[in-house]
């Protein structure tokens, strides 16, 4: 069939931020859908968002309640959400209670009543909540249920209504259930408590006629109702930007030189080191260098507040307050303890889009992980991969810091086994030399080019990180406890500052 001969399926907005993207553009018009999940996971709220986003006086929504939450209570609670529009009630949105009908006349009565109301109102949307209670009454008669669902589906499709049946189901009921067979769309909502955090996820198990984003997507319920966060972070189908030849300065000429001219634009750089080695300072210098070149930046911090972050930068002679005021820099503080990676990423992405940012700092991955609900921490590595892939794909250069537990026998690149996720790695570490705890840095990996193999000493000064010469004359520097090598070689570096003093 040639494309222009195919029936065009209109897609309706769900009214749930993020969900249209997951569905592949919206909900297919006239589809027959089921929203399933345990009590309290947001099924009714999702349906309400949909009806208030789409119902009109000409094509109203009929909301049938059956032996579930009484409509009076439903209205009481749902009007707390910002999407609830009281002016639509009884004009565009009609609530109809069928509890009595079910008790007295069973499935036949329900079908007759729905038919009567549908034919009278010409609805664009029909919701039956809770559908589970309808079929539970005749659970033993599968043929009767199948017949009922078939007739209901036929009726509502014929009358051009987009339908939601809401039910409290568990996944084990999926198999051989006639209701799920008839449905065009199957939305499954999950809610689990892990330690002290609530983790909410949704899955589009089935959606006829269009490609939805597969897998589990996190969602949150706020005063605005549900907000969904796509696994693809809304970047699915977007053409990735070809890696450019441009190099971005780290704000430290010696480090740029070690990196072969700076960080390739669109790369992901990891700075790994233990506490106090200057990871955050390098990250700040990276952002400040971008701002000097007119590149807006975003800093996502998890361990200190934006004002503290800016104040610390000031103590190193870096003014972040002015670009923050001018709108060229946004420091996002993300600390709630039950975040999902996708929510965090959505916030960062929104900031990147708003500022047109070219540089992003995530300080630190350990803080990021701690800010996640425990249930999401197990997926951290995979989530990190999606995040980095998505952001670098749109040309953003990412600098992440990661805290390392210092070992004096070996050199670890990362505690998260994420080195393969990053294009470039700079490793900072302490070394013991001549009774002093000193600091060295090395470029461990540059995916897109040659880099220095030097191990160079550096110092943290009031002007930021100052990198010295290659530390020669020692063996086993990377263990942290070097030993003297060739006695004739120079034994220590001279930093730029010392050189300047001389």
């Amino acid at each position, binding site marked *: 069939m040639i494309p222009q001969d195919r029936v065009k399926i209109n897609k309706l907005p769900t009214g749930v931020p993020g969900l249209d993207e997951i569905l592949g553009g919206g909900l297919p018009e006239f589809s027959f859908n089921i929203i399933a999940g345990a009590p309290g996971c947001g099924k009714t709220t999702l349906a309400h968002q949909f009806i208030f986003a789409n119902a009109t006086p000409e094509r109203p929504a009929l909301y049938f309640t059956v032996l579930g939450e*009484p*409509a*009076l*209570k439903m*209205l*009481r609670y749902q*009007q707390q959400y910002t999407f609830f529009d*009281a*002016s639509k*009630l*009884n004009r565009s949105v*009609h*609530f*109809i*209670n*069928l*509890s*009595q009908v079910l008790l007295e006349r069973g499935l036949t009565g329900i079908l007759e009543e729905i038919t009567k109301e549908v034919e009278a109102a010409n609805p664009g949307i029909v919701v039956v909540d809770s559908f589970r209670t309808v079929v539970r009454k005749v659970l033993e008669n599968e043929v009767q249920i199948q017949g009922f669902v078939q007739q209901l589906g036929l009726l509502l499709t014929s009358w051009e209504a987009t339908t939601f049946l809401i039910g409290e189901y568990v996944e084990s009921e999926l198999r051989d259930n006639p209701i799920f067979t008839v449905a065009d769309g199957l939305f499954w909502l999950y809610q689990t408590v892990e330690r002290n955090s609530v983790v909410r996820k949704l899955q589009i198990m089935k959606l006829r006629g269009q490609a939805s984003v597969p897998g589990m997507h996190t969602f949150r319920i706020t005063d605005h109702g549900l907000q969904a966060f796509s696994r693809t972070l809304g970047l699915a189908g977007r053409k990735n930007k070809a890696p450019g030849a441009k190099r971005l300065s780290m704000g430290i000429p010696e480090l740029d030189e070690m990196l072969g001219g700076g960080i390739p634009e669109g790369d992901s750089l990891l700075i790994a080191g233990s506490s106090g080695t200057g990871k955050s300072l390098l990250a700040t210098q990276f952002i400040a260098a971008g701002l000097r070149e007119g590149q807006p930046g975003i800093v996502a911090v998890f361990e200190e507040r934006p004002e503290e972050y800016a104040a610390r930068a000031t103590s190193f002679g870096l003014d972040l307050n002015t670009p923050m005021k001018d709108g060229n820099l946004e420091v996002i503080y993300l600390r709630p303890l039950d975040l999902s990676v996708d929510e965090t990423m959505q916030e960062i992405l929104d900031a990147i889009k708003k500022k047109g940012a070219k540089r992003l700092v995530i300080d630190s991955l350990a803080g990021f992980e701690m800010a996640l609900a425990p249930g999401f921490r197990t997926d951290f590595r995979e989530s990190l991969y999606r995040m980095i892939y998505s952001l670098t794909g749109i040309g953003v250069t990412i600098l992440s810091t990661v805290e390392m537990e210092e070992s004096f026998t070996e050199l670890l690149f990362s505690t998260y086994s994420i080195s393969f996720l990053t294009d470039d790695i700079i490793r900072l570490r302490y070394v013991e030399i001549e009774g002093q705890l000193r600091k060295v840095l090395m470029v461990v990996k540059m995916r897109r080019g040659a880099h220095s193999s030097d191990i160079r000493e550096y110092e943290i000064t009031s002007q930021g990180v100052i990198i010295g010469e290659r530390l020669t004359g020692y063996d086993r520097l990377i263990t942290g406890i070097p030993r003297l090598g060739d006695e004739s070689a120079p034994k220590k570096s001279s930093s730029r500052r010392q050189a300047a003093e001389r």
Partner: protein
Amino acid sequence: MKGRTPSPKIRELAQRLLAYEAASDNLSDSNMPTVLRVSEKLRRPLSTLVGSSGFRSLLARALTLAKAQVPGLSAVEIKPDGSLEGLHDLGNPGQSAEAGIMLTAQLLGLLVTFIGEGLMLSLVFDEWPEFRA
């Protein structure tokens, strides 16, 4: 049981609604007490919303609250179908009017408690399109 007095605003709304209904030219309902006519008019949208048993429960609660305020309502009862009986014998016109206001105000007050004033008014205006608070 200690009574719960409806707010002056809701009481005033009930009073005006009863007066509006009483003034409406409906000969077929002329022998029906005004409060009964109001209750019957509210029955339709409320039964649609909460079912006939839900409407009966709301009315029973309103009547219980009203009886605590106006002892003259003690003879009034709710039939299984949700309609009121015993409204014809509420004493003199003043007592009868007060009983009607109280029962209507308690019913409207319950709706305010559950769904808020905005939605309650929306239900009222749907049944009495010309009436305005």
